[in-house]
């Protein structure tokens, strides 16, 4: 596994040639975890989509797992924020997790024992082994989210790009997620999460505060200061334990 997961130089990301987040210089190493923190529309999800190869960069240079984004899809796992068909499709939970292994074998090849073992292990990590044969549409939103996370784990990817991964998860679900991320990092995977969850961001090595540009970049203890949070969210916030507390309203940043 390469030691570098993401290298971005003067990267700008956006839609249709219009940048929504620019000035990104990042070097993310294997086994590291990075949280993208910012308000709605700050460009977090757009950056994740660009890293996943779903959007072309507006400008700048981007390298994923030592190569071009388009050539490294098999080394990347992406969790999108929305799954509109979750309540429609006739698919059992285990089938959704198995999808993660599609590009790891030939078009006509059947599932290997390794594939089955990885799928079982991933479902076990998210504590959904008992839900395998239940149709996805019969599961609650939180249970579905665990299935999607198990799918990401089953990719055994070098770079995990997770958009609001803890959305809808209950306390046991969050605990399972945290444990799974420890496992992934020990395995050598780099993790990038877009989140509003301060507790989740605090567990990462590094936090990028974004607001159309990179406001601050560094370890959470150093980066998440009231000044930086004011600049990021437009209101005064102070981190108290695992929560952000509003201290002052300020919209002129």
């Amino acid at each position, binding site marked *: 596994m390469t030691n570098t997961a993401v290298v971005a130089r003067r990267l700008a990301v956006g839609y249709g040639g219009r940048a929504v987040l620019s000035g990104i210089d990042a070097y993310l190493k294997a086994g590291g975890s990075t949280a993208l923190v910012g308000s709605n529309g700050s460009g977090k999800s757009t950056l994740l989509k660009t890293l996943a190869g779903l959007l072309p960069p507006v400008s700048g240079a981007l390298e994923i797992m030592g190569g071009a984004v388009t050539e490294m899809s098999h080394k990347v*796992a*992406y969790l999108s924020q929305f799954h509109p*068909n979750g309540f*429609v499709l006739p698919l*059992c939970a285990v089938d959704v997790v198995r999808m993660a292994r*599609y590009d790891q074998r030939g078009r006509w090849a059947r599932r290997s024992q390794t594939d089955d073992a990885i799928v079982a292990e991933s479902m076990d990590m998210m504590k959904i082994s008992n839900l395998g044969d239940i*149709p996805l549409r019969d599961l609650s939103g939180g249970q579905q989210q665990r299935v999607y996370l198990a799918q990401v784990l089953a990719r055994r990817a070098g770079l995990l790009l997770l958009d609001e991964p803890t959305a809808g998860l209950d306390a046991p679900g969050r605990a399972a997620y945290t444990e799974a991320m420890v496992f992934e990092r020990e395995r050598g995977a780099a993790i990038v999460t877009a989140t509003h969850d301060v507790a989740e961001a605090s567990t990462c090595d590094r936090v990028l505060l974004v607001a159309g540009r990179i406001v601050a970049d560094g370890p959470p203890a150093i980066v998440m200061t009231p000044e930086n949070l004011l600049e990021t969210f437009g209101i005064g916030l102070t981190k108290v334990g695992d929560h952000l507390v509003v201290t002052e309203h300020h919209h002129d940043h």
Partner: protein
Amino acid sequence: MIDPFLNNGFMQRALFAGILVSLTCAVVGTYVVLRGMAFIGDALAHGVLPGVAMATILGLPTMLGAAVGAVVMIGGVGLITARSKLSNDTAIGLLFIGLLALGVVLVSSSDSLTGDLEAILFGQFLGVDATDLLVQTIALLAVCAISLYSARPFLLLCFDIDLVRTMGYKAQWYHRLMLLMIAATVVVSFQTVGSLLVFGMLLAPAGVGALLARRIGSMMLWAAGTGVLSTYFGLLASYHFSWAAGASVVLTAVAIFFLTLVFVSVRKSLTSASA
């Protein structure tokens, strides 16, 4: 129950054609239902009308005209959405109504075509010949081959288009292949069940499958079974009551869908009550 099929060659051919249409529509309709592509399916079913009308006027094979109509529809939707900020369904709606209106104008301007309009819209189930059956068989084999080859990217397309891309598949390519498959099904089936009713065979049996199945493969099997049953009982009703054959088959399929919906709803209520 079986005498009409044993004693009449035209009923045997109609049954065979209906089974072929049912199997083709079961596979393609599953994707139409799961991807929410009913509107483009409906538009394609109507959009072939001017092509068929023009081919008839020019003395060309009607299937060729239908194919041109379908290509214009698919290409037009792509062009409008690429060149404007209009949504996909607006583009489909505009072309749908435009091509339908053009078809009606063409048919109404030709005395010789007026009588054919009913056949174009509602098919000639009882008039299928060996060539129709051969074409329908080839279409079924092609649809099955494409679905097998593209099984994984097609399933991913139904689930999440972003996942298709991040897995390294060419999402747009497979989306177009799926559209082509829908268009081909409409084009080869319109002579049997008609351009309007083929849409019913795409949706109703697959809808039954969606209600009952827990996996995509079993959804296709439920859809195929529903389609074949609808063909059999629809043709039987048509024979005994002198109803239009294509409409009888589609009506049976839609009736089975609503009966299944009631069954599933009652079962769910009973399960909830006992839990």
